[in-house]
């Protein structure tokens, strides 16, 4: 049903729009083209060029692909790549599950719904750096609130940010807490768009609440799911602020992600190398996110 009403009228205005566009004279596009050229095209191509040089702020030497060779030789780069993917998958996966569950709760007739909705969205509005610094204090191995709380229960809390195996997951937990509000809001919008008739019809057929969730809410909030996965996956791939404020990629290199590896190269004055790293990050995001988006959108069409 959605397919029929969705596609038929859409072809009309798009054909009309194409006709209208050709009426604009060339100079009409010029301002936008200049802005686009200076602010987007030029930096993109010059960054590709600079990634092929060894440059200081004062001069540059062309060295071909050596920066890329060096970047892939970085011993902590592999660790950074693995961590980036782990971080993106863990955070986007958790945001989908938690966001959907919270959205179901917050679209139901729960008491003080408006207040609860605001509260779950609140962490999204707080500064990432502030959140990071707060959690560093809370996750302190001996004096932090979290481990002191665990101690009351007789549990010996781990070094959340100082255990090299745990650090990246501790940061991921904070990222989920901070970002789940946005996912919840998107899911709430998705659920609110599902017509009540379906639930009524299902109710008449005698479905259990779980069945209405499984067969109505879940499939029909698919567009929202696609949006949440895409947004949080790309966000996870390019995550930086939280990692940097909480662990600076440490201890050692154990919670480094690509963005923090690149930032450290830049800080150390390896400008060519870090530009090469950014080109790699751009390609990586494209390689992972574009097929994901195509796959998810194709599935949606079959609905």
């Amino acid at each position: 049903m959605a397919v029929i009403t969705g596609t038929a009228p859409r072809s009309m205005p798009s054909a009309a729009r194409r006709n209208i566009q050709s009426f604009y004279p060339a100079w009409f596009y010029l301002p936008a083209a200049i802005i686009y050229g200076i602010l987007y095209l030029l930096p993109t191509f010059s960054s590709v060029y600079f990634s092929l040089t060894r440059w200081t702020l004062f001069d540059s030497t062309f060295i071909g692909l050596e920066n890329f060779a060096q970047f892939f030789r970085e011993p902590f780069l592999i660790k950074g790549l693995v961590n980036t993917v782990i971080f993106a998958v863990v955070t986007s996966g958790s945001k989908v599950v938690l966001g959907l569950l919270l959205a179901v709760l917050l679209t139901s007739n729960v008491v003080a719904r408006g207040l609860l909705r605001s509260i779950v969205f609140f962490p999204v509005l707080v500064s990432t750096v502030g959140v990071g610094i707060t959690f560093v204090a809370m996750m302190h191995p001996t004096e932090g609130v979290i481990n002191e709380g665990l101690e009351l229960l007789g549990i010996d809390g781990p070094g959340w940010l100082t255990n090299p195996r745990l650090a990246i997951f501790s940061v991921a937990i904070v990222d989920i807490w901070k970002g789940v509000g946005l996912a919840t809001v998107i899911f709430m919008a998705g659920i609110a768009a599902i017509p009540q008739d379906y639930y009524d019809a299902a109710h008449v057929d005698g479905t259990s609440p779980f069945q209405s969730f499984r067969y109505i809410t879940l499939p029909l909030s698919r567009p929202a799911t696609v949006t949440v996965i895409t947004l949080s996956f790309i966000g996870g791939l390019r995550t930086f602020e939280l990692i940097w404020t909480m662990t600076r990629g440490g201890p050692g290199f154990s919670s480094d992600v690509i963005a923090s590896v690149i930032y450290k190269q830049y800080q150390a004055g390896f400008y060519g190398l870090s530009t090469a790293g950014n080109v790699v990050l751009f390609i990586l995001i494209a390689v992972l996110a574009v097929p994901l988006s195509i796959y998810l959108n194709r599935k949606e069409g079959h609905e």
Partner: protein
Amino acid sequence: MRMSFRPLLAGIAAGVFAASLSAAAHAQTELTLLTSSSPNSLKLAEGLVEAFEAANPDINIEIETRPGGAEGDNTVKTRLATGSMTDIFYYNSGSLFQAINPQNNLVDLTDEPWQADIHENFKAVVTSGGRVYGVPAETAMAGGIFYNRKIYEQLGLQVPKTWDEFMANNEKIKAAGTTPVIQTYRDTWTSQLLLLADYYNVQSVEPDFAERYTNNQAKFASTPAAMKGFERLEAVHKAGYMNEDFGAAGYQDGLRMLVEGGGAHYPMLTFAIGAIRATYPEKLGDVGFFAQPGDDAEKNGLTVWMPASFYIPAASPNVDAAKKFLAFVASPAGCEANLKALGATGPFLIKGCTLPADVPPSVKDMLPYFEEGGRNAPALEFVSPIKGPALEQITVEVGSGIRPAAEAAALYDEDVRKQAQQLGLKGW
């Protein structure tokens, strides 16, 4: 909203009026000075500027701050490259100084008359292409091991002259229920000390290490004497001598543990004396200092750090006034302002400047290494332009038991190679 504009405008108008009045009274020169935002550097800059302005009423200096560490390096490099640097700026000497392209970016100070009073060792670390570009902003520093004198007294310990004696002391301290060695890896730079302060011992065995290291002929991983720094850090971790929260504690926590007796030793640079004086003045007498011991008691000596410097960027429109400030810093009056701001933290590198008689024990412990017949050597970063930027992460790994010493040394050699290539050195 609209109402509040009027008083604001009136205020601006009054300010402009007042400014034009005072400009008419004196021909004031306005200078700007960029320093690091660390409490010590800021206090030093404020003390020097205050004393200088009192002596030179026609010059007014406004202090700006930048972050320390790698972010500060970026600020300095960017401002120099874009010609927007302040008239005077405070920055490291040695390898970091070499990385800001002094011959293009800085004003040559070789022929200033006060250069005759500057210690040769300091001139060497602010020299590029045979020309001198700086003036010592602080007293000489050293890297070594601070210790809590009360703990040493209670346990009847002697200041160690060899690494084995040091480890034996640690064992006794641990048996007495106190943390032997404080490590603070939240501030990653503090993890490098046991390696960097070992350099006196390296060069006493391999006198030409710095030169061969700079020329791509000597490596940490293949030079046993240089490897020892990594191994010593590893040994301290393996023996369980570190404080339990070493991964989460920071530099300030380390100082607190040291003065309060929560830990017996803290490997650190002696600028910490200034920080202890600022935060725990009454405990300054409880803290002593010794050089990082090596294998041979006869060869015990101290690894010395040259202080940061003040520089004038070539792009400054007020070079003459800025030079006046530098001349003041290099004079006994400047040293006095320094002492007043920071207190005695080490020997001066300016002739005619002396320390007061009542220096704290940690400074007193430093002085014999600087006297005639005393043994000291500059740290590696002052005799070679190459310092790998990832060292602090690598030493955190060794100190946390994540990476073994031998592997860490090889990894650091790789980091060094990258830095040498970026600097455009020959032979890499």
